């Protein structure tokens, strides 16, 4: 596949903080490419440089064949951008917002009017088009926001946290719109700190931490990097004292085993990351715990998630950074 976006040691330094650190990325035409990372990882700054909003401190990038610094105006003609904030005029109607962005892209009246009608249907806002945006729900606003980024049929669409703060149903709807657009040939580059979003929506994902790419590949490839599985043990929630004791005992025992890579515990749950196939580890784990007289209520086996990939690459988990990441 043809490369459509490429960065060369792209760097942004704010005062003395390095937000993006010599980033080298390569996005193929027709992909849904995800930049995944915790807040402050440098995702938004990367997008802002690629969309010509912010100038890089050093390095460069080519978007759709144009240099983001020397040919910024050309880049702006072929990209669409949906920022994290609402990005639409609250005191105007949905239609007026779409018309204005179309005008700024130099569309003529007839083409624009037809396109507005079409895009309103795509995002299910035909009926609300004449209402002021401040009367919209957050989901409607997000859809309008994405629609304004699409009005001129851009080759490349940048979405910064497209489903941030939206409820599950709206999120799934937005995912479907994004897939639909992608099917029609639009290359999509999005940032997210939702692991599930990166996993389900993106063709390829770059995991970013502290302004650097720490892992890159399809979600499947990334997850296969974490060798082995996760065995989750749940201990019975009776007798708090005994539970605490048992949790400590279990952790201590399992930690010593050569097949165990890492243990994370929360409340009455123990996540055991194992080197070998989980199916083989389970009998061994149960045997060890029985010997220690630790009761186990349930046991589940799961394949690694992108969270586990992030843990492996950075030594930290997403959940240590902030509360809501699921």
């Amino acid at each position: 596949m043809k490369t459509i976006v490429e960065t060369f040691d792209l760097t942004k330094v704010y005062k003395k903080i390095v937000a993006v650190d010599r980033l080298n990325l390569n996005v193929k035409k027709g992909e849904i490419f995800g930049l995944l990372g915790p807040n402050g990882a440098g995702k938004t700054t990367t997008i802002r440089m690629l969309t010509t909003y912010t100038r890089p401190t050093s390095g460069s990038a080519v978007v759709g064949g144009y240099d983001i610094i020397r040919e910024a105006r050309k880049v702006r003609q072929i990209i669409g951008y949906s920022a994290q904030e609402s990005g639409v005029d609250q005191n105007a109607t949905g239609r007026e917002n779409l018309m204005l962005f179309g005008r700024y892209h130099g569309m003529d009246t007839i083409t624009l009017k037809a396109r507005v009608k079409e895009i309103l249907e795509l995002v299910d806002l035909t009926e609300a088009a004449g209402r002021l945006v401040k009367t919209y729900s957050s989901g409607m606003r997000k859809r309008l926001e994405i629609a304004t980024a699409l009005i001129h049929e851009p080759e490349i669409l940048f979405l910064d946290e497209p489903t941030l703060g939206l409820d599950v149903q709206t999120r799934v709807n937005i995912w479907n719109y994004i897939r639909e657009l992608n099917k029609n040939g639009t290359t999509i580059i999005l940032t997210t700190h939702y692991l599930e979003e990166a996993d389900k929506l993106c063709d390829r994902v770059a995991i970013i931490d502290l302004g650097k790419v720490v892992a890159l590949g399809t979600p499947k490839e990334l997850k296969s990097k974490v060798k082995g599985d996760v065995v989750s043990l749940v201990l019975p929630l009776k007798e708090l004292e005994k539970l605490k004791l048992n949790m400590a005992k279990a952790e201590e025992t399992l930690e010593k085993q050569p097949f165990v890579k890492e243990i994370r515990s929360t409340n009455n749950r123990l996540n055991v990351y194992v080197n070998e196939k989980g199916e083989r580890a389970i009998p061994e784990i149960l045997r060890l715990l029985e010997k220690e007289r630790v009761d186990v209520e349930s046991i589940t086996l799961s394949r690694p998630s992108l969270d586990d990939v992030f843990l492996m690459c950075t030594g930290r988990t997403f959940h240590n950074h902030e509360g809501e990441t699921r």
Partner: protein
Amino acid sequence: MKFLHDVWYTFLRHLRNDLREPVWMFFGMIQPLIWLLLFTQLFQNVAAVPGFPTSSYIEFFAPGLIVMLAVFGPAYAGFEVLSDIYHGVLEKTLVTPVNRYALITGSAINWALGLALRVLIVFSIAYAMGVEVVTGFGGVLLTILIVTLLGLGFFGLSNALILVTKSETPLVVTANLATMPLMFLSSVMAPSEFTPEWIRIAMKLNPVNYAVEAVRPLFLSGFDWTKILVSLTVLGIFSTLGITTATLALRKFGE
């Protein structure tokens, strides 16, 4: 042409928003109107002082106050930009191929129209209170032109300040601090002959004074073309400077 095209649609957007909430357009008018009523009462007897150029204070004060309309409004124009920043509208607009000068110019034209309207309204009220313009219709048009040029300069500076600081406090503080000196270091309230030497020097640096000095004769005595040309030149430069500063700030905005 791309520039005019972008100016037109930017202008339409701002005009439409103003028409939707016209209250804001008149906000910058309230304080000057209160002053017109209050000060003309308070300083009623000042006109009796020997050497005072007019026989009633309101005749002297009204042209100065109309000029002050250019100083009161621009802070509100800055708040409009702030709303676009907060809602991400500006960020999104800046990644479209829209001409940067056009974004400021379109908004400036709409704002200048609002200012012209405010000048007309305050003028009508002053007229009802007995103020006359000896130069007639032409004088009123020239007054509008001069006040608008002055206002555009402040409009640009106010926009630039918001674009650089991205917060409202510096604008509120600056607007509050600047209004009084701009007014008192000019002949808005008292003839320059009545003021000490240092104030007369300060007046030379105050754009407000260049507007008052040209506008007042239009009301009281007739067309003073030397003063009008000096005023138009200085204020032409001032407004260009303001608008250019705002555009440069806009270009740097994403950093």
